[in-house]
């Protein structure tokens, strides 16, 4: 039984590592993630890069991910499988959304930066999936891609990009807590 326990922690450590490079509470990690955010917001132009700016959240397929926001006692009581499944679904949607954002960017340097960030997200998603498999949880089937994209004008696309970034930031913050919680539960 001890060897199984040890195996469980191997993929778990790699998740923490992926998260560290994407987003942590210390100065170094935050700086990395924030650079991409600042770059994207500067590209979108004012008022998107202004403090306190908040356009209404669009109702599009790119943003059809579980909300990072949840009641504290519900979050606390989440079963491991549900917790992981929410993370897995969220990052699947976010990865596709950021990829599309990179594709439609006119600035080549920003495109490269976003694609590089996607590599990090892809790694994180892979680690989550690996951990789910190790723990014996079934992975959800890959949802049908956003084929029917409604025609949005360029401003609406910018608002969507703004919200993708916001969801990304919320989820990265939340996942750090999720994996700490998971670590405690797996140990105890």
């Amino acid at each position, binding site marked *: 039984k001890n060897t199984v326990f040890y195996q469980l922690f191997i993929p778990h450590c790699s998740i923490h590592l992926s998260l560290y490079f994407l987003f942590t509470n210390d100065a170094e990690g935050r700086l990395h993630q924030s650079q991409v955010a600042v770059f994207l917001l500067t590209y979108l132009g004012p008022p998107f890069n202004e403090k306190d700016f*908040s356009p209404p959240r669009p109702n599009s397929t790119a943003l059809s991910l579980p909300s990072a926001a949840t009641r504290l006692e519900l979050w606390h009581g989440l079963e491991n499988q549900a917790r992981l499944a929410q993370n897995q679904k969220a990052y699947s949607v976010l990865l596709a959304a950021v990829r599309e954002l990179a594709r439609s960017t006119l600035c080549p340097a920003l495109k490269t930066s976003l694609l590089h960030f996607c590599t990090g997200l892809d790694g994180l998603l892979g680690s989550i999936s690996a951990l789910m498999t190790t723990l014996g949880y079934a992975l959800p089937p890959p949802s049908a891609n956003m084929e029917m994209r409604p025609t949005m004008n360029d401003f609406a696309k910018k608002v969507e990009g703004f919200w993708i970034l916001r969801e990304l930031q919320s989820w990265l913050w939340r996942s750090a807590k999720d994996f700490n919680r998971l670590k405690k539960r797996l140990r105890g």
Partner: protein
Amino acid sequence: MNLGVTAAAAAFKEAILVFTPAACSQFGLQTSSEEEPTFDLRRAAERVKLRGSCLLFTSRKLDKVRERRKAAKRTMFPFMFLLLLVQHVLLSSTHEAVISPQDPVLYIGSSLTATCTLSPELGLHASTLYWTLNGISVSSSAYSVLSPDTLSITLQNLNGSQQQSGDNLVCHGADGHVLAGSCLYVGRPPEKPVNLTCWSHNTKDLSCKWSPGGLGETHIQTKYTLKYKLRWYGREKECEVYNTGKQRYSCYIPRNLALFTPYEIWVEAANQLGSATSDITTLDILDVVTTDPPANVQVSRVGDLEDQLTVRWASPPELKDILFQAKYQIRYRLEDSTEWKVVDDVGNQTSCRLAGLQPGTVYFVQVRCNPVGIYGSRKPGIWSDWSHPAAASTPSSERLQSGSCDPKPGEQNSTLRRELKQFFGWVRKHASGCSGMSIKLYDQWRVWLQKSHKTRNQILQDDNS
């Protein structure tokens, strides 16, 4: 739940209230999924004694609440609001207002009249709206209320777009809420690209660079395509690898280039406002060949000669079998100098002797190559980069070691002393009036000088302390 309601009540005091009878029916009831909280708005409204049957929070105010909550311990409270807002927004945000025209492309200096049309369920009047362009409010003198639900704005003499993604023209409600937006692309058509220059590395590939014509900046996305074809036959081809390295307007053709036949090359520039084509440049690959710097550059002394060094190198590896007429150039400088001296008439030998150098000094030397006349080309050719610097020092001579320029202070004194001794000897011999003059006097004078110097310093120190 009590905690939640109290906190909610506190937040309501700061919330912006908009009473919209139509939206009311969406509120006040329980939610669908078990994850989302239950919340009774009516009860909370009673607590703060508000009139009206429902409330709408702007997302901005919500974020302010969230920011404050972040400082305190995170509770479920802000998330409940977020979920409620999301719910409301999902039901009505898609058609709050519409701006026309959407994403227009305009010439710099032109004017634009845009309209913001509200959807009726918002219950807002056009006169309460305002516009911003790139986050800056536009003065209401440019507005015109066309109808209760349509506000227009006229922008004159537009400047080029501030960012590549388009200028953000946004229609806001009175409280700052974003109702709709449109991206403006203001620029100019491209001018004929100029200064098209190409070069080939070892006859294998072709790199070209050019400059945008005219004012250079078009402010909107402009695509440059480099095209080429063999002059007397062959289909037009397009270059595919753009902007390699640090060059912004450049392209690279890696392979399949023909020699001995001229190419025609040009650049086409196009954007949504127009297009332009550069003049056609005709060239033969062999006339624009450049190569790597010479290999194995070595600098060495010429026996004991103090003012000469020998430089030796190998012709660039890729073309070494065909560079019959190549020219070389050498440049050298002193170790701590920035001025290079160039030796031009090296011809096509692979060694050269530098003369007229300073003894006992370190020199840095570089060599470069021009594959001129390659395969019979008559053009001047293109110089390669300089090789990595090689260093060597000239021998220093014996004679100069005993203080020629900049002798040490001790040496200086001993020279002076010697000379003085000679002088006093001469004075005693030829000048009768200075019989007391002797080298002993000089020595005594030196001692006195040192003593008084010390005393002087002592006084100064005493003064300071």
